[in-house]
C-alpha cells in the first residue's frame, strides 16, 4: 500500500511520534547520505514557496536522492488545461515520490487517489500542510514533552492553516489550547467544537497579556492585511497582538515562542535575542523532519 502524507489527521499519535523520533535521530546521531540514493523526488509547486520547497530539496539531497520539479502552473501542462489528476498520473511514471503544493484545498488528497507513488502534501490552499505541523511539534518536543502542554495560539486563527493543523495535532497530546485572536479571526466554530467534543480544553482570550505567564508555548501566526478594510484598522489590531520583550517579562523560563514564518510585525525583532525565540530553529528543523518524512514514504 502506498504511504501518502496528506493531512495530519491521517496520522495517529504513534505515527507522528515515529516521524518525530526519526527526525531526532537524524539530528543527533546523523544519517546515511546514501539512504535514498537513486531515488527521484518530484517537487510540483503550483504556488510560490521558498522555505518548504527548498527544505524538501535539501532534505532529499542530504539523503542522496535527486529532485526535479515545476515551479508554477504557467510552466506546466496545466496551463494547457490539463487536469491535476492527469498531471499526477504522468509524473507518477517518472519519479519515486511527489511533493505537491497547490492552490486548491484537497488537491493533495486528489493527487493521492491518482498517484502510483507516495504523495506528500506541501500545502493545499488554505487546507493542510502536515510537514509544517510535524516540524512545529518537533520543535516543541525538543524543549518539553508534548503531553499536557499549555499552548497559546495567537493571531489569525480563522484563516491560518498552520494553527488549525497544530491545534488538531496537539489535541492528540491532551494539550490545553489558549486562543487569542482579533474579532472576526477566531478559530472556526466547527474546529473549536470538534476539539472540545474530543475532550481538548480550549480557552478563548482577548488579550495575550492575560495568559502569557501560564504558557509553555506561544505559537504566533501572521495577521494578513487583506483581512482588514483599510491600513489603519489593520495597524490598530496588529499592534495589539504584537509580541514584545515587555510582554514576555513574566513568562515561564522555558517558554518557547514559535512562528511558521514569514513574519511581518507580529514579533518585535528584539524578541529574537531572547531565549524564548525559537522560530528560526523551528524553520531549520524543517530539514530533519522532512528527511524523516521522505524516509517514511520511500523506505
Amino acid at each position, binding site marked *: 500500500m502506498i504511504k501518502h502524507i496528506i*493531512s495530519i*489527521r491521517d496520522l495517529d499519535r504513534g505515527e507522528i511520534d515515529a516521524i518525530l523520533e526519526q527526525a531526532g535521530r537524524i539530528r543527533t546521531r546523523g544519517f546515511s547520505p546514501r539512504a535514498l540514493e537513486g531515488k527521484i523526488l518530484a517537487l510540483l509547486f503550483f504556488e510560490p514557496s521558498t522555505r518548504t520547497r527548498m527544505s524538501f530539496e535539501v532534505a532529499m539531497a542530504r539523503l542522496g536522492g535527486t529532485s526535479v520539479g515545476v515551479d508554477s502552473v504557467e510552466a506546466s501542462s496545466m496551463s494547457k488545461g490539463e*487536469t*491535476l*489528476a492527469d498531471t499526477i498520473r504522468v509524473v507518477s511514471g517518472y519519479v519515486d515520490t511527489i511533493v505537491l503544493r*497547490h*492552490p*486548491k*484545498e*484537497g*488537491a493533495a*488528497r*486528489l493527487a493521492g*487517489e491518482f498517484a502510483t507513488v507516495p504523495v506528500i502534501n506541501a500545502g*493545499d*490552499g*488554505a*487546507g*493542510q500542510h502536515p510537514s509544517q505541523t510535524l516540524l512545529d511539534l518537533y520543535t516543541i518536543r525538543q524543549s518539553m514533552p508534548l503531553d499536557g502542554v499549555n499552548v497559546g495560539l495567537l493571531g489569525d486563527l480563522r484563516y491560518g492553516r498552520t494553527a488549525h493543523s497544530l491545534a488538531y495535532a496537539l489535541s492528540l497530546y491532551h494539550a490545553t489550547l489558549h486562543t487569542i485572536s482579533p474579532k472576526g479571526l477566531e478559530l472556526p466554530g*466547527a474546529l473549536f*467544537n*470538534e476539539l472540545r*467534543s474530543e475532550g481538548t480544553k480550549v480557552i478563548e482570550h482577548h488579550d495575550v497579556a492575560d495568559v502569557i505567564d501560564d504558557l509553555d508555548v506561544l505559537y504566533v501566526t501572521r495577521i494578513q492585511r487583506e483581512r482588514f478594510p483599510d491600513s489603519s484598522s489593520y495597524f490598530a489590531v496588529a499592534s495589539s497582538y504584537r509580541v514584545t520583550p515587555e510582554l514576555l517579562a513574566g513568562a515561564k523560563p522555558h517558554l518557547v515562542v514559535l512562528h511558521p514564518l514569514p513574519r511581518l510585525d507580529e514579533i518585535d525583532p528584539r524578541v529574537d535575542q531572547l531565549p524564548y525565540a525559537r522560530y528560526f530553529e523551528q524553520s531549520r528543523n524543517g530539514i530533519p523532519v522532512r528527511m524523516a518524512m521522505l524516509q517514511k514514504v520511500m523506505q
Partner: protein
Amino acid sequence: MTGKKKDARSGLLISPIENGTVIDHITAGEALNVLRIIGITGATQESISVATNVSSGKMGCKDIVKIKNRELRKEEVDRIALIAPRASINIIRNYRVYEKKGVEIPDQVMGIVRCPNPGCISNANEPICSRFKVVPAGLRCIYCDWLIAKDLTSYII
C-alpha cells in the same frame, strides 16, 4: 399508509401503488429534499405522489412519498437517512408490502452533496465526484475537510 384508503372528507387521498416504493415517516417538510437526494427530479420518468405535513401518531407530523414502478436500492435508501433518519422504506409488489426496512446513515456519501468550499478541488474541473465522510457533527469533505454541520439540503447536487 399502504393499502389503507381514506375518503375525500378526511383530507387525504393517495391511492395505493401496485409496484414501487413508499417512503414513510419522512421528517415533515423534507419530502421534496428526499426526492432530490435520491435523484428524482421533474426530468425523470417516475410517477410520484407526495404528501406533506400528514398527521402521524408516532411523529406528530410527517411526509410520505410514493414512487411507482421503482424499487430503491440500498445506497439510495441510506442517503435518505441524512435528512430523514426516521424514514421507513416499504417495497411494494402487487399492492402488498414485500419488504419493509429502516434507513441507516452511511459512512460516506458520494456525488450527492456539493462541497460548499469554493476553493475545494472537488469543485474544480477534475475527474472526481464530491465525497463526504459522515461524522457526528455532519458531513466532512474528504478532500478539503470542510464540515457541513447544517443546511445540508442546500448543498444537494
